């Protein structure tokens, strides 16, 4: 089956962003996922975030591994280059791509099987390196594409469709990401687009490794009673610590800072994150406190969502490496090849 092109109806009255693009320009062909799959909501959120941020679609590179979640980059940002790589290895491919051209925006999309099971090593190491990217795990606790086996984010004791309980301890991706040095870490829920869209926008405005664990129920295999990743379960246990508003250049002036309950974080690159606090003891830039908060609430059975940690002054891999501003893929012979004279000297030194 070749993919289904989405009917491109001309809607002359569709709103346009600062670049003159409509939301359609950020969409892709029609999704072939199951009707109701959480992943499609995340795709829609990505489309909205990119539209609202006025990003030129072709300056975004979207990369993924293998899985239903990893298929989604086909279904959004049709004018962006995409790379559906191999299972669990998107992080290394993205890291390499990022090395080659530091100017594009990198969006990594993955699943919980892709990132927490087979890909846990690569996921972890990409966080440590501070690769400048937005890394979204579309977390449903199962392997959707291979028909519903537990993944490593399934909670111990959670039941599959046939009622069999999971035996292994769950991996909590946000805690691990914070532990390993990610500098923008959030959790959200595919069913809550109002929360999710700004979190994606904030991540795309962040310099450094930004990670979003987005719980995204699998309606085919993990949306039953006994699952801890079903729509109902997540809605019931969701505890948002804050609500984010991303303020891009042109909005800035109009922002109204309600004192006390609102915190404004200015990121290194000038973007502003306006946070409406829902848990008032939550200090989003305090790494140690954030980790403790998460562990305490997890022990209580809460699914904490929102922007969980941000280091507004983070460096990224290129910063650490002190790479040149020109993307490598734009460098020519003159910049790269030392030439025959240098070689002659070298030869001389080797006799």
């Amino acid at each position: 089956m070749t993919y289904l092109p989405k009917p491109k109806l001309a809607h002359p009255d569709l709103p346009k962003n600062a670049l003159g693009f409509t939301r359609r320009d950020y969409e892709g062909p029609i999704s072939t996922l199951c009707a109701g799959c959480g992943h499609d909501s995340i795709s829609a959120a990505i489309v909205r975030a990119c539209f609202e941020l006025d990003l030129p679609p072709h300056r975004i590179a979207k990369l993924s591994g293998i899985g239903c979640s990893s298929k989604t980059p086909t279904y959004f940002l049709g004018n962006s280059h995409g790379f559906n790589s191999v299972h669990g290895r998107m992080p290394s491919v993205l890291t390499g791509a990022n090395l080659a051209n530091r100017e594009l925006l990198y969006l990594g999309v993955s699943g919980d099987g892709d990132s927490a099971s087979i890909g846990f090593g690569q996921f972890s190491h990409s966080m440590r390196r501070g690769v400048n990217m937005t890394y979204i795990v579309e977390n449903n606790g199962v392997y959707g594409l291979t028909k519903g086996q537990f993944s490593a984010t399934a909670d111990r004791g959670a039941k599959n469709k046939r009622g069999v309980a999971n035996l292994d301890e769950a991996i909590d991706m946000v805690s691990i990401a914070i532990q390993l040095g990610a500098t923008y870490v959030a959790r959200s829920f595919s069913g809550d687009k109002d929360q999710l869209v700004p979190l994606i926008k904030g991540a795309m405005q962040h310099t450094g490794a930004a990670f979003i664990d987005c719980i995204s129920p699998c309606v085919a295999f993990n949306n039953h009673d006994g699952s801890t990743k079903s729509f109902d379960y997540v809605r019931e246990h969701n505890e948002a610590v804050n609500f984010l508003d991303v303020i891009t250049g042109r909005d800035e002036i109009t922002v109204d800072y309600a004192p006390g309950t609102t915190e404004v974080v200015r990121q290194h690159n000038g973007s502003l994150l306006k946070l409406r606090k829902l848990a008032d003891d939550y200090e989003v830039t305090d790494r140690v406190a954030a980790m403790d908060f998460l562990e305490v609430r997890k022990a209580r059975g809460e699914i904490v969502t929102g922007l969980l940690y941000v280091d507004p002054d983070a460096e990224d891999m290129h910063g650490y490496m002190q790479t040149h501003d020109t993307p490598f893929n734009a460098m020519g012979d003159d910049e790269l090849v030392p030439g025959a004279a240098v070689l002659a000297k070298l030869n001389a030194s080797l006799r």
Partner: protein
Amino acid sequence: MSPQDASQMVEAAGSTVPPLVAVNDFVVKFANVNGSGSASANQLFAKAILRMGIPVTPRNIFPSNIQGLPTWYEMRISDRGHMGAREGTDLMVAMNPQTWDEDVRSIRPGGYLFYDNTKALPASKFRPDITVVGMPLTSFTNAAYSVPRERQLFKNIIYVGALSALINIDPKVIEDLLAEQFRGRDKLIAANHKALHMGRDYALAHLPCPLGLTLVPSDKVGDRIFIDGNTAAALGAVYGGATVCAWYPITPSSSLPEAFTRYCERYRVDKETGKKRFGIVQAEDELSSIGMVIGAAWNGARAFTATSGPGISLMSEFIGLAYFAEIPAVIFDVQRSGPSTGMPTRTQQSDITICAYASHGDTKHVLLIPEDPNECFQFSAAALDLADRLQTPVFVMLDLEIGMNERLTAPLAWDDNRRMDRGKVMTAEDLQSGRAFGRYLDVDGDAITYRTYPGTHPTRGSFFTRGTSRDEFARYTEAGDAYQRNMERLLKKWDTAKTLVPPAIRTDAGAATKYGVIFYGSTSPAIPEALEIIAAQCDVVLDQLRIRAFPFGPEVEKFIDGHETVFVVEQNRDAQLRSLLINELETSPKKLVRVLHYNGAPITAEFIAAGIGAHLIPAPLREAAE
């Protein structure tokens, strides 16, 4: 019987053996302990001989261990230019009690043993048919130095001094080398010079200088340089325009990315800003390093990794992706003895099969196989061009023998007019001008299709890369015919590759012969010598073909067709390149005779000659000849 004095005849099995006599043609071997600092003294020794204009080929034989285990440094000195390994040692410098017996055993009858006789050894520890030269190195050094570190360091220089007297190395040359090495640290230079002469003076006074093995200045080195293959390949990557290197340490490949790092720091840092024109990542493993290479190459940078067998195994899945999705990737495989961890510090050519067909499904990969550091440099740059041109993984197949040993090799050359061949890449202008773009559409008939770098154009030229089947316009499809068309195009691209890789090099015997020999890589230096032996012993000449790449060009088929029997010399158990030959060329296996060496040591001319010779002279004749 006591150890032999150097001036008298030596005895073997009843008959006397004259001490070996040779000028500029013998093998010296140092037996040391790993981590004892002997390496630099040994290198000094080799370099001094080179400076005298005499070709020398050193080999470092070291354990998979950091400190304390046996290590050897073997030097083949050969005015005739024979650079292959040779069996047996002419002068053994035995500095490691742990391996004494084995070291003494390896000396050729009539050969020489230099050792530290500070502590007396029983006569049973020696052989009657060799000349033994004892020097009380330890007591001598300890008398001269009191600081333990100095004792350790200068002992090495002292024995170099003594040896210089024993085999006539020009001390001035060594002095100069020491001065270069410690340039700017005059005190150190003086101290080293002193140690050198202490050893030399002792030898001149107390030892039978010179031995039967001597050196005289020569002019056989020419303008050749002395460099190891990994370093040369790293330089090739710098010249080839590689900007991204992702790697994971593994013997014997680590020194390649490490050299790349050094050269990049030297040549690729912006003088004004200190900013770097390269990105080198030590990845967390090989799956990650190849993933980064593929990601970088997909995004338009020239990228490579270096590894050895275990790394290739781990990269297999990704290599298949790069083949099928058609992404350039350069992989240096510095081969060591397999399978599994095998003998990680021994050489072999046993990753040919896995590299040629890496990954599940139907795949074939391009291999370049350099014979020496100069070709490592050339093929490294060529691989980067080829990978871009063919949009596929390209392997450069080194091995420990050429990768980690310094070799005399032609000076590295670069044509300043040369430009990187970035292959078929559509630019924003191409797209803007309305040129049609189908990522997997063969418009030129060579089965190579156009690509775009991500971010090129706002509305044109973007495509989706995947490891699943797709049509000519990179759209996902499960249609069998589209899949098959694509797989057939990849076969056609394979044919294109045959026209682009370095052709095999043929050297004819001069006289007509029905025999040919095929070889590759680090086997190369042993071949001329092997053929000399065969010519002498069997009165047979052979035409030679040195394979430099896979897939094979028509010249390979022609060579095989033109001979009745073709010997295929390899350093692996399973005749891996021979399999490729019969597989890809449909050659009759019967005419391809295996000559296989795979104990981890470098192959020798004697071994090759014996292996080929066994087929040339019928057994009874052969016995009579011996």
